[in-house]
Structures are given as C-alpha cells and as structure tokens.
C-alpha cells in the first residue's frame, strides 16, 4: 500500500497527490439495518475514484457519508488532515465539497444561468440589503460570479441554453446543468451520483469527456458512483467495489476486474 502522503502516477501520466479524504472503519446503520459495514478507503488528490456495486450495495449511502449528509455511527472521516465531526450542509460546501444527485435536483422554473448561479451562493459575501438595493459590493460581486459561471457554461458547451428554463430541457442536458452548478462552487472534491444514469450512448460519451476534462483542467478530485461498467473502467483511476454494505474490492480497474469476489457479486453467486 501507498503511504498516505505520497502520490502515484497513473497509466496516462497524470500525477496523483496525497490522500485528501480518508474513511476509516465506517459503519452506518438505519435502525437495525447496517447499510455500510466497517468500510475503509481513501481518495487521493486529483484522482477519479469510482464506487461501484450492485443495487442496494450501499453506494449512495457511502457518498452521503463522504458529503457529510449522513454521520456514521462508527468510524472516522478525515478530510485534508482533519477529523470531521457532524456538519451542516453549508459547512460541507465551504470545505470545498460539491455534488450532483441521482435524481436531478435543479430548480425547474429557473433558467440554466440562474441555476448555475445558485452554485456560487457560498462565495457571496455581500448582505441581503446590499443585494436587494444593488449597492455596495453586490454589483462587483455579481459580475465576478457571473464571469465564473460563464466560464463554466463555455466549458460544458451549454451556451445555447443559457436562458432556457431548466424544466424544458431534455434529461441529458439537465444532468450537465447539474454538473455545471456543482462546478460553480469551485469544489476540491466533486461527488457525482450516477452521472450517466438513463443516458444514451452519445450523452454518456459527452458526459465522460466532461468528467475527464474537469479533472484535467481544474484538477478537481472526483468520486463517482456509476452502474455502467464500461464507463467506470475507462474513467476511473481506482475503484471501490461494494456488495451488501461490505467492501469486496479496491484497486485499479484491471485489478478489480480480475477480483474473484467482484466477479461473483456481479454474476450473482448466492449469499448465505
């Protein structure tokens, strides 16, 4: 195993840094149900880390633990060298963690631009009155935020729908807008919950390219959950495999692919 302070170099020559998120012996229970059973793994600076597993394996719960939405009953979550306690959502956002949702969670009646602007909320310093009266630093701040949002719009190639209400967009584009909103927060760690679910091949290819570009261009660390094995194996640097709340594999895509336990989980060997 690698030391947590040193990095490694990926097959395509990218430099991966030290550990940013370290999950140690996490157990999460809902009443009597153990959704996550004593799982440990880490996420390193600049890598694309996938969490895979069959339905009900506990992937989304895991992501919610990382995002701080669920607080595990046992275990420790370390982020950037500090142990994290229970947090409010805005505190998580300020730490530099942003996410997208499995079921799109955008404001349907608002335009794409406004939706993405909401991602900048935690960067806004001016107060309520200053903004309402368009006075003081509100104007300069709005312009700076808008510029950042426009760069993201350009990056994700959604200029043509800038002013379109989100409710009128097809599914694939909504997913892209959601990614844009997450990026607007300038996250250090980006969590993607099934970014390709329900997409056609072309939309998947686009989304994969954007994920790689985000990682490459902004150096964002990405943790994602995905069902499409082809996509996961192509995109990610390291993969965690979960089944029934347990971790059954962890490593590079090729390591995971040849792991007997993983193969069994996906082919459906009976559990006793």
């Amino acid at each position, binding site marked *: 195993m690698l030391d947590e302070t040193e990095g490694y170099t990926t097959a*395509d*020559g990218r430099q991966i840094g030290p550990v940013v998120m370290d999950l140690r012996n996490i157990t999460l229970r809902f009443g009597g149900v153990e959704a996550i059973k004593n799982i440990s793994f880490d996420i390193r600076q600049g890598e694309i880390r996938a969490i895979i597993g069959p339905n009900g394996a506990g992937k989304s719960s895991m992501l919610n633990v990382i995002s701080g939405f669920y607080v595990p009953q046992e275990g420790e979550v370390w982020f950037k060298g500090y142990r994290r306690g229970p947090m409010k959502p805005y505190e998580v956002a300020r730490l530099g963690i942003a996410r997208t949702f499995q079921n799109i969670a955008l404001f349907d009646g608002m335009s794409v631009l406004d939706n993405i602007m909401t991602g900048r909320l935690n960067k806004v310093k001016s107060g309520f009155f200053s903004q309402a009266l368009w006075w003081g630093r509100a104007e300069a701040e709005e312009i700076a935020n*808008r*510029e950042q949002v*426009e*760069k993201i*719009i*350009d*990056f994700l*190639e959604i*200029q*043509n729908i*800038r002013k379109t209400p989100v409710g009128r967009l097809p599914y694939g584009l909504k997913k892209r807008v959601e990614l844009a909103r997450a990026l607007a927060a300038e996250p250090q760690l980006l969590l993607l919950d099934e970014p390709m679910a329900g997409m056609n091949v*072309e939309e998947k*290819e686009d989304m994969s390219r954007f994920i790689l*570009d985000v990682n*490459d*261009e902004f150096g964002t660390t990405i943790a994602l959950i995905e069902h499409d094995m082809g996509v996961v194996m192509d995109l990610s640097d390291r993969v965690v495999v979960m089944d029934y709340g347990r971790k059954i594999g962890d490593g590079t895509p090729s390591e995971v692919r040849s792991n007997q336990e993983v193969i069994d989980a996906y082919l459906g060997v009976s559990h006793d």
Partner: protein
Amino acid sequence: MAQLRAPDGADPQSIPALLARNVDRLGPRPAYREKEFGIWQSWTWAQAADEIRALALGMLNLGLRPGDHVAVIGRNRPAHYWAMIATQMCGAVPVPLYQDAVAEEMAYVLGHCGARFVVCGDQEQVDKVLEVQAMSDAPRNVEQIIYTDKRGMRKYDHARMNALADVQAEGRASGQRLGPELDARIAALDYDSTCVMLYTSGTTGKPKGVVLSNRNIIETAKNTSDFDKLTYRDEVLAYLPMAWVGDFIFSMGQATWTGFTVNCPESAATMMTDLREIGPTYFFAPPRVFEGQLTNVMIRMEDAGRFKRWLFKHYMAVANRVGPSLLDGKPVGFGDRIAYGLGNLLIYGPLKDALGYGRIRVGYTAGEAIGPEIFDFYRSLGINLKQLYGQTEASVFITQQPDGGVRSDTVGVPSPGVELKIADTGEVFYRGPGTFVEYYNNPESTASTKDAEGWVATGDAGFIEEETGQLRIIDRAKDVGKMADGTMFAPKYVENKLKFYPNILEAVVLGNGRDFCTAMINIDLNAVGNWAERNNIAYASYQELAGHPQVYATIKEHVETVNRSVAQDPMLSGCQIHRFLVLHKELDPDDGEMTRTRKVRRAVISEKFADLVAALYDGSDSVYTETEVTYEDGRKGVIKATLKIEDVPVFGEAPMEKVAAE
C-alpha cells in the same frame, strides 16, 4: 463617409494592404466581434491589425516560408480570420478546411496542398490532424500545429505545437528582429499573388484546390460591394463554413474592402440567438435556413391563440399582396399602404425582430433552388431577399439579382464585369475578374474547365430570359439526361418541386435511360415529427416515423401534386414520378451520400442503394435492406429496414383542362 477608393485608382492590391488602409481610415471602428462568455467582445480595425501582425511575426518566428500552405480548420472566429491574413502577410497561402470533415477526408486535402502549418480551432481538430499524420499512407508534411482553444491541450506533446496566443506573444517579442522581414514580405504581395486556396466539395471525384488571386477576390469584392452599395456601416454574421468560398468573400473580401463588421457567433448552436442580437444588415443563408425558420414560425403560430392566429393570417395576406410591390418600388394604393403599415406595426416588425432580420438591407440566398412560397414570404415581410448564382471557381459571383428585379425562379443578371454565354448544349459559361487562376497541381482539370480565352464551364444547364436578361438554371448539365423514349430527364427540377414541401427534406429522382421516373424521399424530422405529435402518432425512431403508413399517405399526396404540376410542362412531363419510397435514414455527408455543402451525390446513392433502385423498377411492393452508417465519432454501424414502395398516379398529355375543371 470614408472614401474607400483611392483617388488615383491605385487601390491596395492585397488583403494585408487593405487592412493597413482600414487602420488608417476606419481605425476606431469595430472590425470583428465575437460573443464569448455571454458578452460580445469587439476589436477595432487598429486592434485587429495589431493582433494579426503579432500572429504573422509569430508564424515567421516558427519558420513559415513564402509559398507555404497553411491549413485553417475551425469554426468562424476572429482568430481564424486573423490567421488567414497573417498567413498572407508571410507570403504564404491560407487553405481553410471544413471543420466537420472526418480524418480520411482531411488526409487527402492536407497531403494535396502539403500544408506545413495547420491552425486548429480546438482539441478535436488537433486530434484529427494528428490522426492524419499517424496514418500509414499519409504524407507527413505538417510541421507545426497552432491551436486557438487551449482546453484539453495540456497533455499533448508541445514539441511542434503551440497555442495561438503564445505564438502571438512570441511574435510580439520578436517584432524588432523580424519586423523588417515581415514588411518586406507584405510589400512583395501584388494583385497576382495567391490570396487563398479553397477546396471544392465536388459532387464527383476528389476535391480540387481552387487557387484565387488577390485580383480575383478584391475585384469581386469591389464590384459586388458597389452593386449592393455596401459600406463600412454594414454588419454581417459569419456563421457559414470558413472553407466555403462565400464566407471568404463576405467575411474577408468584402469585409476588408468596405470595412464592415464581421460578427462571429458564440457557438454553432447559438447562431439563431446571436443573429437576433446582432441584427445583420447584410446577410447570406442557404435556402434551408430560410425554410427552417419559416417552418418554425408556422409551427409556433399553430400554438398561438385564436385571435393571434387570425391577426397573423389577415396581415400575411395583406403582406403577400402589397409587400413585394413596395419592396420593388412599384406603385401601391393608399389604402394598401395604410394596411401594410398597420401590419408592420403588429406583425411584420415584431416577426422580423424575432427572426433577427429587423435591419437587413441586402439578403442573399443561393446554392439550391428556393421554394417560391418561402421566397415570397420573406419578401412580403419587407426583407430584401435576393438570389445569386455562383461557384468557387468564380469567387462566388456569376449572376445576382438587382434591387427591383427579384424573382424566385431566376438567379439574376450577370454580376458587374462578368460575361455569360450559353453553349449549344445549354450549358452556362462565364468569365470575369473573379475567374480562378488554376486548380492547384492539376493542369488537366484546369484545362478542361477553363479554356484559353478564360471561359469557364459551370456544369449547369440554363438559359437567359429575353425580356429581363436574367439567367434561369434548369439543372446540372451532366444530370440532365434522356428517358428510354428519348424525352428529357431533369431530376433536380422535380426534386426541387418535392423539396418545397416542408415534410420533404431531400428527394432523389431516378430515371435516366429508364422507362419511367421513381423517387427516394427523406422526410424532414422536424416538420413530420411535429405533425406526428399533433396527431398522437407515436414513434420511437426516425426509421419508424419514416415508414409510418400515414406519413406515406401524406408524401404520396405531395408526389401526386408535383406530378400534376410537372405534367403541365410539355418538355418535362415525362419526369412524373411513378413509384417512390421513403428512405429509412437521412442522407448524410458522413456516409458520403451528400457533399459537405449538402448536395446529393447521385452516383454514390445509386450504387449504395442499388437494391432499392432495383426494387423501384421491378414492381415489388416492399424491399428489405441493410445500410452501413457512420456515426459522428467515425464508428460504423448497420441499419436494417423493410421499406414499402408506393405507386403514384401520373397525369396525361392534356392536364390543363383537367386542372381548370377542378
């Protein structure tokens, strides 16, 4: 107004010289605009000249030699126009290429012109060029790649690759050292040096490199700018492929000659929004753009309330009656003027604004025949839409319609300085100041196209109307054939009639040397899909919709009406369509069925769909077929379908009475 022509007649003899003149006379006026990050950024002539000079110095620094070819592949962006002028400054030749061409197509052209430098718009284009260089049989002539958009380029090996902005920075830094050399090269440019090389799409065979001199481009720009009284106050939207000669004339030739502003859209998808924001005064679009917009207007009117629909219908009737005469300056009654004025307030004005045509002074369409209803619709709104006829070898302009002499079925009078003649075969020949120098490295083709006296065969059959002096085009000369019984076969004439229906996107009429004509038809997914939605017809794919019985019934009606109208022409009544089928896939340039400018390649189609052609003529009522398709990323797949073939009634020798009796 700034005086454009020099008093002593010594006009600048190259685009870089025109640029210098514009800096002198129009320095602080906007030369280029581009929407980026949601805001229109603009560059004055002085600023643009500074950027261009920096780029030219940078290219010199990288070792660009006089006579080299520089390929430019990307969407319409100021930087790409600058790259072309910078190339000219270095004494090299810009070669803009179609950005949607796949690597194999690009390989031929890059090898043929031997480009040492390539300017790429983005990573996608860089990848294609690298792919071409890696092909086993491709010549490895590309030495330097310059890219505009830095995104995703960090991982690439930069040994022979630079960002355009970095090349400019290097250029600025070496201005002291390389400035005199650059000035000398600019001074060496004259009227006969090559201005640009453009590859013709070519409906047959390999593309040919058309060499156009400064004389060709500047003389054409001068004459046609005078013809339409274009000035430095005009605005154009540069959105058509840069590899197309029209864009070069409008956004480069006429723009540098008159000094008007070239506006570049944010992306291809935002073109319609950007059009509305800019409101160009001088505009060109192929007929399909106008068709598409009209279809959209009509679809949206269907959704409007009853009162609005009535208002629209009422005032469009007024516009139809009065609009064209007003535009042509013909006398119009006082009552009609009032009605039209009201209509303008309520309907035409807002509609024109919504379309982005609020300020158009001069609009052109060309490339394909435009439906008379579509043409009249725009003209009746007060948009001065005209037709022109041209080709790459003529630096676009062969004929164009003067104000007041506009009709949908002609293509206008000879452009200033252009002479026309019609050969015995009916083929149209021209010569003029815009007539190309040669096909690059292809003396045989040059000789067979352009004779010693400078006459060029257009390949189109047509005639000149005696009363108006306007040219009328019938069809491609080589497509005009004979049926088995010896009567004339002019497929395009019939295809155009079919394509005037919004439901029909493309049609291919067959029948050369046969007993009767048949047709393969492409439905327009927009129009037919909308109709299906309204009528609760469910469909899962293009293929399913195309094969739907009700779609077939509608298309059959259209074909029948076309037959009726074709029957009225005694010369062409043999071209009525006896049988047709609706194709299961859209004809696509990626599959080689059309050219990049969306002209049907007949030979490819009759070979590729040989099974369908056979079925059209052997009397069967359906046919099973498998067709190979190429996806956007270059992968191939197969579409399987069983197509129905329909018979259509044809009309007899004396159709006039029948029509009259109805």
